[in-house]
């Protein structure tokens, strides 16, 4: 078969195809140089026909291509020249561009069996666009991995700080809690849950005031809502009741406003310290300071200050307080005859009977020795006073068991009422004292 018709057929395809095609005969001479190559090399087939590959181009070609051509012609082996390893082997330039920058290429060499021996087909692809796309892909991939790295570093940091906080919250000797604006517990450490009597399941459901003792709840709710309104700092002492056993524990609770990224209040975070023992002993001490140790009644100082306080508020409260002054008759004789212990028993009995006879809001005090003073919180009319005094007198005069025998003791009583007898502490007490003496003298 003549090779010329084959080359003619090849020519038809060669003109149509969007790739460079060059055919070299067994001597390495150019036999085909398609339109694509003409355009990109800026040399026509007429100029290069019959030339060797290296002479055909205006500028040098990659030496390895020439070696590849030899491999094809001598051994009949096909060769591939990847763009990545040989970026621009031929001096080929973009069409309509006068620049001397070579287009990016990928080259394939194939043996062609002909009657004249093995020829070589060179196929050149323009991979400029592919390279551009892959560079873009790489760039995006790098950016993405940079971003990922950044995010994972931030996550790591967040994880660490979260872990640090959790561990601190776990080990802290105080209760730690966080609530939203409604006061619903969003986070609490074990210690807080225990102090507030809240189970882990109730977290995220109950408000922090859930188990505040009945005595404190109204005061605390008021303080809390005004604190949230003012976005201020909250600090209160209050009692929590453990719903499991009814135990009460005194705590000091402090909370600070928690703000979101936009600076708006989102909730409160705070601590709770157990002040139960301190508080209990403070209450006891306070009581002790106002108490008469022997009888458990109030002492003189407490009564005076309470009376003073009461007189200040009479107008507003629309009440009429009064005082009773009591002195036990012949108490000294009981002391002398049966000893101080018997005297103490008598004083304690009188105290108990006074408490039982009078109302809860009346203040009963031992004034000293065998003197007692009662502040009656509100007397409707001064005419009621003799009746009250007579009730007291009766209660005291019942026999008292002093261990060895029963004794009977009587009390002398004087009274003074606001506002008829005075509007200040001292005049009222003095008048009641004087009237008590009159009573005592009258009954001897």
């Amino acid at each position, binding site marked *: 078969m003549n090779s010329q018709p084959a080359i003619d057929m090849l020519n038809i395809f060669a003109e149509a195809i969007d790739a460079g095609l060059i055919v070299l005969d067994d001597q390495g001479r150019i036999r085909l140089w398609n339109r694509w190559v003409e355009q990109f090399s800026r040399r026509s087939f007429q100029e290069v026909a019959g030339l060797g590959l290296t002479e055909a181009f205006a500028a040098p070609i990659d030496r390895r291509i020439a070696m590849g051509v030899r491999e094809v012609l001598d051994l*009949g*082996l096909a060769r591939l020249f990847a763009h990545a*390893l040989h970026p621009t082997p031929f001096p080929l330039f973009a069409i309509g561009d006068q620049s001397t920058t070579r287009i990016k290429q990928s080259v394939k060499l194939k043996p062609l069996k002909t009657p004249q021996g093995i020829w070589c087909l060179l196929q050149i692809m323009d991979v400029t666009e592919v*390279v551009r796309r892959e560079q873009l892909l790489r760039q995006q991939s790098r950016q993405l991995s940079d971003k990922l790295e950044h995010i994972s570093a931030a996550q790591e940091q967040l994880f660490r700080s979260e872990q640090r906080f959790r561990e601190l919250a776990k080990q802290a000797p105080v209760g730690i809690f966080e609530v939203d604006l409604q006061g619903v517990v969003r986070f609490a450490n074990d210690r807080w849950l225990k102090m507030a009597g809240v189970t882990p399941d109730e977290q995220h459901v109950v408000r922090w005031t859930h188990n505040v003792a009945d005595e404190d709840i109204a005061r605390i709710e008021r303080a809390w809502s005004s604190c949230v309104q003012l976005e201020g700092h909250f600090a209160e002492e209050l009692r929590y009741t453990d719903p499991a056993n009814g135990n009460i524990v005194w705590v000091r609770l402090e909370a600070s406003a928690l703000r979101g990224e936009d600076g708006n209040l989102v909730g409160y975070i705070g601590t709770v310290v157990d002040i139960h023992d301190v508080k209990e002993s403070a209450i006891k001490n306070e009581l002790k300071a106002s108490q008469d140790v022997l009888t458990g009644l109030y002492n003189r100082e407490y009564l005076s200050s309470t009376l003073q306080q009461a007189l200040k508020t009479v107008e507003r409260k629309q009440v009429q307080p009064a005082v009773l002054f009591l002195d036990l008759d012949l108490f000294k004789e009981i002391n002398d005859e049966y000893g101080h212990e018997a005297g103490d028993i008598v004083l304690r009995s009188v105290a108990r009977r006074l408490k039982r006879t009078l109302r809860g809001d009346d203040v009963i005090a031992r004034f000293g020795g065998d003197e007692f003073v009662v502040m009656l919180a509100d007397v409707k009319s001064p005419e009621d006073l003799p009746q009250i005094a007579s009730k007291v007198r009766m209660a005291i005069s019942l026999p008292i068991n002093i261990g060895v025998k029963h004794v009977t003791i009587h009390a002398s009583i004087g009274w003074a009422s606001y506002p008829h007898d005075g509007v200040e502490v001292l005049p009222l007490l003095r008048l009641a004292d004087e009237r008590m003496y009159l009573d005592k003298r009258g009954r001897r």
Partner: protein
Amino acid sequence: MTDDKQLFADFTELQLDALAETFNLSLGEAAAVFSEMVAEPIELTVPTVKILRREELLKELGKVQGADKVDRLCAINQHFDAGDAFHTDTMLVFPEQGSLEIVRKMLGDGTSIDQITELEQDALAEIGNIIINSCMSSLANLFQTTIEGTLPVVKTTEAASLFDPYINSDVILIAQIGMTMSTQNISGYMLFIMDVASVRGFMAQVQRLFGI
């Protein structure tokens, strides 16, 4: 006993040794070329020559894949024709990840893109092309014959479907040689896939070469 096993039994031990040595010579040159390309020493294992059916080969490839069975294989394949003497598909097989590492090492680009890109696949084809051509041209040299070859085709796939183009009854002569890049811990294998007639033709060339 099948015809194929019969074929294997036909050869003497001496002939099989000569066959192994022939591959050893040609693959040694291929490894030298590869070593030069990656600028790293390449360790070669002793070549083993086996004649297997396709399913037997798949079992062998389980070993090629190593412990990490999920890794797919990347094969660079070229067809060669030595006139009437024999024809063969010559395949260079790497684990997919390994092939990516090789090509990225050569191109000096550490950007981690999961898939091999078009240009990288092209570069890998050329690497395989150079290694396979070096092996085949040294065989042509030894046999003093012409061996024509096609362009390389890169295929990345599960081991099981790597041999789909070859029908079941095909015998596959495997001359297997391990090439290990010690710094990268990558092992590649070279496979020759021939039918019965080609195995006989190839053996004839080997006998002529060694005068046996």
